[in-house]
């Protein structure tokens, strides 16, 4: 049995909801998952040794508990996955808090990827259930080819913004106007104008879905296999 832990740092629990949205499917498909730690769904109080830790949320640098949990996860888990935008890039906790105010003395939030070594990062707010299943399945099967883009994001991706598709794609004359970024955006912060994305910055929650979904930044070769 592969032991999976879900650890929550500073976040809204939305990524867990997305994970739970697939849990039966995970059992069906794999029949090899044991959820050993998940404070919202199970009683375990201590993070046990585990194979995969799905860590949701950013790390509050003003709260020592948050830092300690992050470090503990790294010690206990073989594979640490930054699950969702807050853990991967900071997301709403870092750049766009809106009306979700934190404790007044807590003002500094860092993505997990900046605090400990993370093996895989899944952006998105939340990442889709399918993406979570696909990543876990690939991790179980040791499918490093599939996971490579997620490993890259864990290593390089400490920021995300709708602006990414402007800087990295439109400004580099790579955008051909497919509209995938606009569809991927969970807050409809992207509208297509004259075949190019226009980012409505007031709506962007810096989840990274648009740029990670763009076929003109990253197009892994394995996608070319069709049946």
């Amino acid at each position, binding site marked *: 049995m592969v032991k999976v832990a879900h650890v929550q740092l500073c976040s809204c629990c939305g990524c867990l909801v997305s994970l739970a*949205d697939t849990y039966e499917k995970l059992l069906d498909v794999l029949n090899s998952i044991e959820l050993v730690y998940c404070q919202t769904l199970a009683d375990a109080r201590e993070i046990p040794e585990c194979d995969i830790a799905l860590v949701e949320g950013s790390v509050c640098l003003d709260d020592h508990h948050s830092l300690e949990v992050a470090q503990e996860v790294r010690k206990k888990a073989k594979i640490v996955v930054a699950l969702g935008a807050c853990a991967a890039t900071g997301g709403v906790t870092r750049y766009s808090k809106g009306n979700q105010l934190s404790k007044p003395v807590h003002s500094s939030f860092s993505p997990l990827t900046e605090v400990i070594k993370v093996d895989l990062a899944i952006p*998105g707010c939340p990442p889709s259930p399918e*993406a979570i299943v696909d990543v876990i399945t690939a991790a179980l099967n040791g499918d490093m080819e599939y996971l490579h883009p997620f490993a890259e994001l864990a290593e390089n991706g400490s920021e995300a913004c709708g602006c990414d598709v402007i800087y990295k794609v439109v400004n580099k004359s790579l955008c051909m106007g497919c509209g995938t970024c*606009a569809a*991927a955006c969970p807050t409809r912060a992207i509208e297509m104008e*004259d*075949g190019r994305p226009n980012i409505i910055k007031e709506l962007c929650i810096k989840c990274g879905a648009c740029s990670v979904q763009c076929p003109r930044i990253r197009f892994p070769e394995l996608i070319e296999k*069709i049946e």
Partner: protein
Amino acid sequence: MDPFGTYKKVVSARSTLKEVLKKAQDGGIVSTAFIYGLENNLLDGVIVADNAGEFRAIPKVATTPEEVLEAAGTKYTVCPNVSVLKSAVREYGCEKIGVVGTPCQVRAVRKLMKYPIGFRHIPDKISLIIGIFCMENFPYYGLKLIVEEHCGVKMEDVVKLDIGKGKFWVYTKWGETKAVKLKETHPYEQIACHVCTDYTAELADISTGSVGSPDGWSTVFIRTTKGEEIFNKMVEDGYLEVKPIEEVKPGLGLVEKLALTKKEKNLKEIEHRKELGLPVPY
């Protein structure tokens, strides 16, 4: 170099639906497949490029054969079809979606199916991907300039645009036909098209385009099991006429020539960009 990507078979085909042939660009394959899918409950919504007036293209979720017909015909300008994919599921409630797109859009759809990070409950609802052959695309104002300045026709008077036999053709509602050499249109191409090496929509279930087949017919690549199933059913039910590609002129050789031209030209451009230190998709 492999010109076409994976495919099971390639044929020349034409719709048997009169109302489609009246409006279709060539053989009416895309419209017919979508109408067939909607009528037979294989699809419940299709994403098409609608004509938003004066050949502006706008993506639309069509749920009836009538809407598919309205959108028939090639637009020759950018139309962000993938942008309405989520809306097709969430707002229209579609569960069996057909998508038509250029090769780059087909690749985008395949990527979001394989890596559906921002596409919750979408991948399993994509039932059919139809790709269209594409050498390059034009931004709308590039297209307008070709039509109005080079061909001397007002956009409002255009009834059909076409590319074929080395020329860009404009048909007006007054019955006139104007054409310019394709070479004259090159400066108005979308630059981002120059890093694309996919001419025949290699990742689609079915790809189609006029090249290789006689006027009024389309060349069709059937690539996947899914594509094969629906294509065979369409033929069995009399929605399509089919001829072996070997028996038509100009034939597959021309498709191969153009596919390889695109690959060679754009592979060079990719290398050029690398030399300049510009990013390329990887």
